[in-house]
Structures are given as structure tokens and as C-alpha cells.
């Protein structure tokens, strides 16, 4: 990990996050029907975007690993999957808080929520699979295949509110977004801030994988 690169991303994450918080709490007007709890939406939607991106990276990196057999792609997939699960966990936490106030209950087995839980469980299984296989090449191969297959759940999750009858709000419609200009600014500010945070975490996580590999080599050297 290049130090200057890391500091630049850290600074960008701080600045964009400060602006996102300002935009979500001060810049965006209060929504008339739901009131203050609607402000969860700015972070919730941004948090939901990151796992989509993270799992897409897992899928692409897995394909690249299977075709090129380079460890860096396996490391990228491993890091991205873990970060995706962290952000997906936050989606599953923030959503029910909003739902309790808006719908009157935390959870319901409707298509978007159910598929979100399935996506989350699939990528937890991906992480568990990585931990359960000891041999490096075998683990990377199994994980790559799983990472590609599991990605099928992501577009299903995204389209769930379009394909099936659901009570989950639909913000991004084919006709446009039902948001005022200031609300859009707050939403995009949050999306940018959390994307930069994802890049920052990914740099750290790949650095962990690199160090781990160095450690494995040293262990082999001592063992031989």
C-alpha cells in the first residue's frame, strides 16, 4: 500500500463524509410525511450501494483469478467481500430503524428485505468458505467460483422492488427520482462519501492480505 495514496484517500474520505453529514442533516429539507426519521434514508441508500459495488468487484476479481491465476485478484475478492458484508450489515440495521417508525414494525418478509437477507447470508457463507479451506490454491479456486455464482443474487435484490409487489419505497424509477434538488444533493453526497470509504477500507484490507501472504512465506521458510 502506497503511503501517499492512502493519505490522499483518507483525506478524501474525511472531507466527503463531513459534507455528507452536513447535507443529510442541514442542507436537505425535512420530509413532510415521515419527518426527521427520513434522514436515515441518505445513509441507508448509500450504505446499500456499497455492497452492490463490493460484490461486483468480488465477481470481476474472481473471474480474473480463474483466468489469470494471479493471487492479487484473490486478495482483492477476499477484501471486497468482507467490506461488502460490513456495509450490508449496516443496511440491515438502518433499514429496520426507519421501518419501525414508517411501517410500524422492524421487519417483514417482503421481496426486497428477504432478498437482502439472502445476499447477506450468501456472502457470509463466502467468508466462511474461505476460512474453512486450508490450502491456498484450492481456497482461491472455490471462493472464486462461489463469488461468481453468488453475484446472481445482487441484481435480483436490486430488481426485487421492480419485479414483485412490495412495500419497500422505490426511489430510482424509470421516470426519474421523486426527490427535491437538495435531497438529491444529500443522497449523492452520501453515496460518494461511502464509496470513498469503501476504497479506503479496500486498500487496508488488501494490505492485510499482502502481509498475510508474506507471513505464510516466512512460515514455509522456517518449516523447510
Amino acid at each position, binding site marked *: 500500500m502506497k503511503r501517499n495514496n492512502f493519505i490522499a484517500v483518507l483525506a478524501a474520505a474525511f472531507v466527503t463524509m463531513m459534507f455528507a453529514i452536513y447535507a443529510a442533516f442541514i442542507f436537505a429539507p425535512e420530509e413532510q410525511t*415521515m*419527518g*426527521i*426519521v427520513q*434522514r*436515515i434514508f441518505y*445513509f*441507508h441508500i448509500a*450504505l446499500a450501494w456499497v455492497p452492490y459495488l463490493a460484490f461486483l468487484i468480488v465477481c470481476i476479481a474472481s473471474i480474473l483469478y480463474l483466468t489469470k491465476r494471479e493471487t492479487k485478484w484473490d486478495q482483492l475478492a477476499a477484501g471486497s467481500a468482507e467490506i461488502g458484508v*460490513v456495509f450490508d*450489515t*449496516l443496511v440491515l*440495521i*438502518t433499514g429496520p*430503524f*426507519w421501518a*419501525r*417508525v414508517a411501517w410500524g414494525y422492524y421487519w417483514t418478509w417482503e421481496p426486497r428485505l428477504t432478498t437482502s437477507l439472502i445476499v447477506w447470508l450468501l456472502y457470509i457463507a463466502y467468508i466462511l468458505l474461505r476460512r474453512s479451506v486450508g490450502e491456498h490454491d484450492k481456497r482461491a479456486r472455490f471462493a472464486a467460483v462461489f463469488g461468481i455464482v453468488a453475484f446472481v443474487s445482487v441484481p435480483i435484490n436490486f430488481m426485487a422492488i421492480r419485479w414483485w409487489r412490495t412495500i419497500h419505497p422505490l426511489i430510482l424509477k424509470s421516470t426519474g427520482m421523486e426527490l427535491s434538488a437538495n435531497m438529491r444533493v444529500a443522497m449523492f453526497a452520501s453515496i460518494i462519501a461511502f464509496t470513498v*470509504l469503501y476504497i479506503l*477500507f479496500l486498500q*487496508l*484490507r488488501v*494490505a*492485510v492480505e499482502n*502481509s*498475510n501472504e*508474506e*507471513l505464510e512465506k*516466512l*512460515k514455509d*521458510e*522456517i518449516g523447510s
Partner: protein
Amino acid sequence: MDDMGFRFMVMAYFAVWIVLFGYVFFIGSKIFKIQKDIQHLTEVVQKKSK
């Protein structure tokens, strides 16, 4: 509803930052532990080569 909305919004944002800081701490401690192990094993390899 607004009082309840405010409480739930605060709880949601609080949960987000707790989890994110927790994750940063988790990665940080992982890097620290691995670096320590690498340092130790490097010393062992150097001693062995002597």
C-alpha cells in the same frame, strides 16, 4: 412520531458509526498482529541462516 423518529434516527446513525469504527479497529489490530508476527519470524529466519 417525531420524537420517536428522532430517537430511531440517532440510534441508526450511532449504529453505523459504531460498526464502522469497530471494523477499522478490527483491521488495524489485524495489521498490527501480522506485522508483529512477520518481525518475529524474520528474526527467526535470520538467526537460522547464521
